[in-house]
C-alpha cells in the first residue's frame, strides 16, 4: 500500500505523498480504514475513491454491476430454455440417442471449467472464423451512450459468454430434472392416470413434470450464486465489461476501496438473488407457503 510514484512514473515529493496518504486514509491501520469506509458508506453513501482511476468508486461500479446482473439473468434464461425441455426429453425417451447426446453434453458441461470453455471458444472462433470474440460490445459501441443500436450490439455479443456461463448449470439442471422425472414417472399415480386413459403428454405435463421441477426451483438460488461467481472469471478471460475484470484489476493494483465495494456488491447481488428465489419457491410450493403463514419469520 505504498504510493511512492504515480502511474506515469513522475516522482512526487514526500510532502505530496503524505498529503495523498491523508486523503486516502492510508495513514491509519487497516482495520481503522475498513471501519472508516463502512461508516462513510452507511452514513454518507460514500464508497471511497479509486486509486487507479482517481474517481469515486460509485461512478465506476454501477455500470459494471448492471452488466453482471444482465449477463447472469441471460444465462439463467438460457439454462431454463435449454435444460428443462432437454431434461424432460431425456427422461421420457430414456436411453434414446437424444438421451445419450444430452448425457454426453452434460458430462462435458460438468467437467470443463468455465474459463477453459471460454478459452477453447476463443481459440476456435479465432482459428476458424478469424475473429476475436471477446468483449460485450463492438469497438464502436464500447463507450457510446445507450441506444437501440447499442442494445442490439450487446445482444449480438452476449450470447457467447451466456453459453459459456450457462453450460455447467445446464448440465446439472438436465441431470436433476432427468433423475427427478424418472423417479416421478414410476409413481403409482402416473400408472393410475395412464390406466384410466389419460393421454400421455397430458399426464406428463399435468403432474410429474411439475413435481420434477420443484427441486430445481429450490436450487435456483445456488444456480444464480454459481453464475454470478463464475461470471467473474469468464469475464476476465473474455474481456467483458462486467464487474469481474474491474475487480481483478483493482486487486492487482491494490485499489482497495474499489475491490472492497465490488466484492460487497457482488455478494449483495447474490444474497438478493437468493432472497428472490426463496420467495419464488414459497409462492410455488404450497407447503412452504403454509409454513410461512403459520408462525413464519
Amino acid at each position, binding site marked *: 500500500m505504498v504510493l511512492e510514484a504515480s502511474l506515469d512514473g513522475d516522482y512526487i515529493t514526500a510532502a505530496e505523498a503524505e498529503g495523498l496518504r491523508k486523503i486516502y486514509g492510508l495513514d491509519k491501520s487497516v482495520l481503522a480504514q475498513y471501519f472508516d469506509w463502512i461508516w462513510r458508506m452507511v452514513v454518507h453513501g460514500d464508497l471511497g475513491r479509486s486509486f487507479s482511476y482517481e474517481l469515486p468508486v460509485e461512478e465506476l461500479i454501477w455500470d459494471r454491476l448492471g452488466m453482471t446482473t444482465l449477463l447472469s439473468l441471460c444465462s439463467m434464461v438460457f439454462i431454463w430454455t435449454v435444460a428443462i425441455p432437454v431434461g424432460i426429453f431425456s427422461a421420457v425417451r430414456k436411453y434414446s440417442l437424444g438421451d445419450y447426446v444430452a448425457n454426453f453434453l452434460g458430462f462435458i458441461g460438468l467437467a470443463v471449467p468455465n474459463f477453459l470453455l471460454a478459452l477453447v471458444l476463443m481459440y476456435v472462433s479465432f482459428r476458424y472464423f478469424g475473429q476475436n470474440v471477446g468483449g460485450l460490445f463492438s469497438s464502436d459501441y464500447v463507450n457510446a451512450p445507450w441506444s437501440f443500436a447499442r442494445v442490439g450490439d450487446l445482444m449480438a455479443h452476449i450470447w457467447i459468454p451466456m453459453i459459456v456461463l450457462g453450460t455447467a448449470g445446464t448440465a446439472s439442471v438436465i441431470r436433476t430434472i432427468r433423475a427427478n422425472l424418472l423417479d416421478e414417472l414410476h409413481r403409482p399415480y402416473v400408472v393410475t392416470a395412464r390406466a384410466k386413459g389419460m393421454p400421455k403428454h397430458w399426464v406428463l405435463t399435468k403432474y410429474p413434470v411439475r413435481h420434477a421441477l420443484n427441486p430445481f426451483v429450490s436450487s435456483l438460488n445456488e444456480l444464480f450464486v454459481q453464475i454470478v461467481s463464475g461470471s467473474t472469471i469468464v469475464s476476465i478471460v473474455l474481456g467483458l465489461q462486467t464487474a469481474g475484470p474491474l475487480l481483478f484489476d483493482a486487486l492487482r493494483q491494490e485499489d482497495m476501496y474499489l475491490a472492497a465495494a465490488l466484492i460487497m456488491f457482488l455478494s449483495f447481488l447474490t444474497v438478493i438473488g437468493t432472497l428472490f428465489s426463496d420467495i419464488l419457491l414459497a409462492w410455488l410450493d404450497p407447503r412452504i407457503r403454509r*409454513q410461512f403463514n*403459520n*408462525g*413464519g*419469520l
Partner: protein
Amino acid sequence: MQSVRCHGFGAQADLVPLHASTSQVDDCLHAPNPVDRTAAPILELQNVSKHFPIRSGFFNRQTGTVRSLNDVSLNIWRGETLGLVGESGCGKSTLGQTIIGLHKATTGKVLFRPIRSQLTGKTDSQLRPYWADIRMVFQDPNSSLNPRMAVYDIIAEVLRVGQDLKSRKDIEGRVLEVLDKIGFSKEFLKRYPHAFSGGQRQRIGIARALAPYPKVIIADEAVSALDVSVQAQILNLLKDLQEELNLTYLFISHDLSVVAHISDRVAVMYAGRIVELADTETIFNASRHPYTEALMSAILEPVPNAHADDTRIRLEGNVPDPANLPKGCPFAPRCRYATSICESSDPSLGEISTDHLLACHHPDVVQNTPVDQLEAMAG
C-alpha cells in the same frame, strides 16, 4: 455409581409355579399369569406428562407446545402384560419412550421396583443401570438392528458395555443362551441382519432385549411390521418367554386383536391420556368408553355380515392435534354421545368398578352388546 441391580429379584431366580388360573376366561384369551396385584407394582407412573416445544421461524423461537402425554398414571405389576392401544399419534410410543427415559418426562414420576427408584429426572448415565432391567423391542426390525453389525455383535453390545459379564467367553455363552431361547442356531451368529426375514429380525431384536436378564420389556408395536402368520409366531414366542422368565410386558400396539391375544389388562389411550383401563375381558366385553366402543366395532370380523345389524361405528374426523387440544373432553368432537358438559370440562380417570378405570362423563351411555367379538378377534 452404585449398581441398583438386584439379582435375587431377577430372571429365573424366582420362577412362580403355574397354578391353574382362578378365573377361567374364554379359551381364546390369553390365560393370565398368576399376577399378584396386592404387591407393589414393578412400574408405577404418577401423573406423567410429556410436552414437546414447537419451534419455528428464523430464530427458532418456541411457538407452541405439543402435549403428547397428559397426566398419565398407571401401574404395571410383575409378570403381567399390559396392552396399550390407541390410534397412531395418540402418544403410545411416547409413553413407552418416556418410561424408559429416551424422552425425559416434563412432569410426573416413573417409579421402578424393587426400591421404587425414580426413573424420571435422571440423566442417561444415571439411567444406564436400569436399562439392563427395562428393555425395549422396537417396531421395525429393519431400522432397529444396525445393518452394519453381525447378529453376534448386535446382541453382545449390551453385555460388552455392561458391568456384569467381563470375559469374552461369558459374553459368548450368554449370547448363545439367548439365541437358543429365540430358536436360532449357532451358525447364524456371524450373519448380518440383511440375511434374515422380518420375523427372524424381530427375534434378534427380542434376543437383544433379553440379553441382560431384564425384568420388564417394553414392546413398541413389536409385531406391527410383520405378516399376520409371523405375528402369531412372535406373539407366542413372547408368551413362552414370559412364562419361562417371568417377564413383565408393556405391549404397545394399535392392533386390538394382537393386544387381546397377549394382554392381561388393556389401557386405551386417546390424545395423550388414558381413557379406559381394565382387564382384557372387560375391555372387550364390557367397555364403557365411547372411544373403546368405536375401536371394538372396527375389528374386522372373520365372517362378513355375520351380524345383520352393522354395529360398526365410524369415527368422523381425526385425533385432535396435540398442539391444539380442545378444551373439554378431547374425544368430545368425535363422540356420538357428547353433551354440553363434555365440551366444557375434561373428565378425569376414575374407578367405576374394581380395577376398571374410566375417563368419561357418561359412564353408562355405552350399550354393551355382548357381541361375540372375542370369537371374531381370535378366529
